[in-house]
């Protein structure tokens, strides 16, 4: 009984010593986290004001991103969303610093890996954003050009252009994140190559009579039948 009691006392002593050693780190971590929350809030406010001042919402609107985000359920102005993102990133950074202040070896190792991986996440996010912007821009350009050329399937082709660009961006982002690098590339190559081959076959074999009809119609139109001769200028 005496040994057990002594053992318990010793363990209690070790726990107490460790707690005493840990508590200052914990309080430092807590303070850091609280300071981080305050700074995140302040930064969010400053970023929101700055974005409003430089009218960043108009830029996003003109690039068509607002419309895409709204379709995805994000209804708040982009400036607000960006300010929130900055705010949360600040919270995340301070949370990581706070965890680091605890000096727990396992957490240190995980954090080191996390920090090494973080640039990949940002790069992937940027690639996705660029894909979104470019996809929207080119989809709109395709839509307008095809409508002005009188192509009935303009909407469908424009959507296809947007999806193609976005799929390309997603593939690049996944590659950046090192997720299924080879399988993603192979899948993309198979899908892309398959689509091109299918289109080539459709145009070359299946749609031959339609294309012949279409081309002869266009050539006839080119000869002036049914055309306007209004001079616009």
């Amino acid at each position, binding site marked *: 009984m005496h040994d057990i009691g002594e053992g318990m006392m010793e363990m209690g002593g070790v726990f107490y010593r460790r707690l005493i050693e840990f508590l200052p780190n914990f309080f430092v971590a807590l303070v850091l986290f609280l300071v981080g929350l305050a700074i995140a809030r302040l930064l969010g406010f400053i970023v929101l004001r700055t974005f409003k001042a430089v009218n960043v919402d*108009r830029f996003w*609107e*003109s690039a*068509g991103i607002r*419309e895409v985000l709204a379709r995805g359920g994000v209804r708040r102005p982009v400036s607000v969303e960006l300010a929130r993102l900055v705010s949360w990133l600040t919270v995340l950074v301070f949370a990581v610093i706070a965890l680091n202040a605890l000096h727990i070896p396992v957490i240190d190792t995980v954090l080191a890996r996390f920090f090494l991986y973080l640039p990949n996440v940002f790069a992937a996010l940027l690639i996705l954003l660029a894909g979104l912007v470019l996809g929207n*821009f080119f989809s*709109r*350009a395709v*839509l*307008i*050009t095809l*409508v*002005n*050329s*009188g192509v*009935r399937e*303009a*909407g469908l082709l*424009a959507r296809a252009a947007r999806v193609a660009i976005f799929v390309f961006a997603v593939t690049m982002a996944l590659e950046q994140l090192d997720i299924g690098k080879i399988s993603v590339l192979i899948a993309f190559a198979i899908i892309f190559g398959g689509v091109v081959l299918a289109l080539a076959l459709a145009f070359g074999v299946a749609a031959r009579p339609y294309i012949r009809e279409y081309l002869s119609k266009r050539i006839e139109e*080119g000869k002036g039948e*049914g*055309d*306007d*001769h*209004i*001079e*616009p*200028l």
Partner: protein
Amino acid sequence: MKDGVLREEAQERVREIGHADIVVGIPSYNNAGTIGHVVETVRMGLARYYPLAKSVIVNADGASTDGTPDLAAPAAAGGTADAPGRPGIRAISTPYQGIPGKGSAVRTILELACDVGASACAVVDADLRSITPEWVGLLIGPVTDSGFDYVAPLYRRHKYDGTITNSVIYPLTRALYGKCVRQPIGGDFGFSGRLARFYLSKRDVWESSVARFGIDVWVTTTAIAEGFRVCQSFLGSKIHDFKDPGVHLATMLYQVVGAAFDLMETYAGVWKRACRSESVQTFGVVRETPIEPVAVNVPGMMERFRLGAQELADLWETILGREIVSFLKKLASLGEKDFFLPDDLWTEIIYRSAVSAHRKVINKEHLLKSLATLYIGRTASFVIETRRDDAAAVEEKIERLCLAFEEKKPFLVKSWEQDKEVSPCTT
């Protein structure tokens, strides 16, 4: 000749000529069928109306592949000082440099006119079939005899010709700047040496739409907005080769209307102050002249408009607002008998487009090109409305549209100045 666009051989020719009183420029691109006639007619006009003046005919060509410059040179050569009984008319044929388009050709002509110190100039298109020697006198006379700086053309045209002019540029220019210049983008115009120097001093415009189809609206608007003395001359019928079908209507619309919208930015202080329009002095005798018939495919136009309304409605909503687009969608479902786009609504569409371009709501090229099918719809509506009308009745309807533009101008001024969404449509 620093920062100039004249090629070495053209500069050499300018040095040979030294000074000239009058310069007539002819921008060309693949106009082999008409260039000889145009140059010959200009030469006759110069000989008849300015026998004592030293004149230069300039052909600024955009690298034609059909031998246009080779045909222009001999036609002009008949008028050199060496030919017996002919006045001192010199000719220069030079390829222009810069962005391919009429504007770059005009820039070359302006530079040459300034280098030879011309006091009066004119530009005529190379595809004209109805040009007469009188055109030279009518475009240059108001400058040399009456002290005007800019002479706009006034033509008799088919009621369906010049649809961008009639439905957008004329009403807009008139409402904005207060001068009733009937053909602000006619293509042929006269101007003083003073104005030529002013045009050339604007070095930042030659890389924009002004270098292409935007040149005509730019020369007219700049002359009016900068307070130069402006008049117009009745030239008779304008019959010319049909524009290159390869040039898409949407591109034309983008360049012309885009240039007009850019000018609204440049001269915002001027057009906001202009209250009502006034007529400008007209030279020449306005009379009936023969015009060519125009083929119109109304069902085809309506079909194009319907496709636009179906596919571009969301985009139009960003530019024009929900109420207008809901009207346009309804319009798209109507048959030919009921198809009508009223003047008030069309005016608001143009004004809202200008404001959206000003606010950079979407990329400007997308904005203007997306309006092409809408413009086709308006043209179809106009053709249906005026089918049985004669030229005078059609002119009255265009006048009514101009008044709608003038009446709604306060809406444009207010919307332009507001930094928020355009207020809901009242139509």
